[in-house]
């Protein structure tokens, strides 16, 4: 895989040298990836959905006021079906489900992106150290990671939140801890495959320092699998957040969160189907978008894997 990347790099830099000398090398690589991604209709579809979700999260306060609409109870209008006034109906406390879903996207995206960033930084560093230095250190780090991998991640997250208490910070902490080992593995594998390659040797031969080699050559070339894993990881983190909130270990009421909204509507399934249906659809569509984007990124970053 990294062979392919270096090849691409060589090709693009060649054309670049003849065209614009000043353009940085790195940009052309990403431009190439973007070019390939643009041709993938499914990935663009995912990107479009994701953009809508991000916009909803950013402008949630303009769409519906938090204090007066999202958390204020209105018992006169409980469990109303979808209508012109309440697009997706109301929940068991008479709150507008559409408004709550819009605000709920904030929690999902926040936990998704932050917890994945934490696990990429921690897991990535551990994996890079293990891969670069090898030997005993590698052994110790990876055996500890094996222990974490031996517990299904949802179980580990449940155990952590149940011990530390259910709130946003602990939730994020639990989700990021439980996915650290997978990033460590991915980064280690990719560092290992790059470490002994000829272009690294070449860089060393012309006198590049270790620091420069790691920063300019190893990290950029091991990023591809991490980006793919990260996109799918955000999807996993959003699912885990919803799942934990569903069993009461995540976001606490009255704050809106998709999984918690589902759990709230569960006992009214018989009379008010919309309370559980719509938040679940929101989760599914967001995850779907991330999966589409993740698959597209994988193909764009490494076209050889594409069937």
């Amino acid at each position, binding site marked *: 895989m990294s062979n392919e990347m270096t090849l691409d790099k060589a090709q693009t830099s060649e054309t670049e040298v003849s065209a614009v000398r000043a353009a940085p090398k790195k940009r052309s690589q990403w431009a190439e990836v973007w070019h390939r991604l643009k041709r993938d209709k499914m990935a663009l579809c995912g990107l479009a959905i994701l953009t809508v979700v991000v916009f909803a999260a950013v402008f949630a306060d303009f769409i519906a006021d938090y204090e007066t609409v999202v958390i204020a109870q209105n018992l006169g209008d409980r469990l109303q079906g979808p209508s012109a006034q309440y697009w997706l109906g109301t929940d068991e406390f008479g709150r507008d489900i559409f408004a709550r879903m819009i605000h709920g996207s904030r929690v999902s995206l926040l936990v998704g992106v932050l917890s994945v960033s934490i696990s990429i930084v921690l897991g990535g560093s551990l994996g890079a150290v293990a891969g670069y230095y090898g030997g005993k250190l590698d052994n110790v780090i990876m055996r500890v990671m094996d*222990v974490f991998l031996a517990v*299904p991640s949802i179980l580990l997250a449940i*155990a952590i939140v149940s*011990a530390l*208490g259910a709130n946003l910070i602990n939730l994020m902490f639990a989700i990021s801890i439980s996915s650290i080992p997978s990033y460590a593995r991915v980064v280690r594998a990719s560092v290992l495959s790059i470490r002994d390659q000829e272009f690294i040797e070449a860089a060393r031969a012309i006198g590049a320092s270790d620091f420069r080699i790691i920063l300019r050559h190893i990290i950029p070339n091991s990023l591809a699998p991490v980006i793919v894993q990260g996109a799918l990881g955000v999807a996993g983190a959003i699912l885990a957040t*919803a799942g934990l909130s569903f069993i*009461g*270990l995540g976001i606490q009421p009255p704050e809106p969160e998709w*999984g918690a909204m589902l759990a709230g509507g569960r006992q009214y*399934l018989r009379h008010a189907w919309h309370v559980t249906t719509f938040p679940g659809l929101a989760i599914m569509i967001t995850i779907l978008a991330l999966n589409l984007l993740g698959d597209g990124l994988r193909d764009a970053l490494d076209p050889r894997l594409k069937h």
Partner: protein
Amino acid sequence: MHKFIFKRLILLVPVLLGVSLLVFAIMSFTPGDPAQLILGENAPAPAVEALREEMGLNDPFIMRYANFVGNAVTGDMGRSYTTGREVATEIFDRFPNTLILAALGTIIAIVIGVPVGILSATRQYSWIDSSSMIMALLGVSMPNFWLGLMLILVFSVTLGWLPSGGFMGWSSLILPALTLGTGSAAIITRMTRSSMLEVIRQDYIRTARAKGVAENVVINKHALKNALIPVITVVGLQFGYLLGGAVLTETVYSWPGVGRMMVDAIRQKDSPTVLATVVFLATTFSLVNLSVDILYGFVDPRIKSQYA
């Protein structure tokens, strides 16, 4: 081969010790005094202190952990704070329920995933391929607890065909197993397809076709054997995952399994039960993964020879 199995079994010991230490350490952060919890809020301080001493709660962390492991190996996982029952007995009473659900879910996943995956691969880029890939994508994107609720909505609430939860004969197995199996079916479909596509491109398949072997024989006899090797691993991993991670599905269907037992224990702050169930499920998960590794050695002689 025996050497290979033995080696893997030995390697399992430190992993399991690590898992129990990890979970034990996490659970020791649980706020609240177990002794106080058992005796009630109004219990006199000396009585609470005496119970703390008796339960070994005043011992240093490493002692408590050693005690836990020592007892756990002999099958003693402690007593529930809420029911007073032996946690190990309770787990073994409930484990068959979890096992049957995971097994049924896996079977559903294989029955759907393998044929659809083969069909997709042999008709790449056809409408069958695109529609089954879209279905598979939806399958992996769906939160299973939501799928569970939707199935209840359709088949129990609206149509009234199947029970919505609990354990009332075989009919109550259908919805939970379907819920569990859907995600795995999607993963197995994708895996079968990509593995099959890879195998079809190989030279020996071209040779078989060149010899004039019928296409269905090429696919079902020549290609399938090799294509299924990675699929077996995925099936095994999915089974382990369904055993260890069926917590949410069991909750949705009020299924009397180990996962549901754990969630109930968390709600009641019954930490011995939480600890025992998590360690138990993680152990089962590791054992299944180990079996998959060993099975892989049997199925693919190339793996085994690395250890011989």
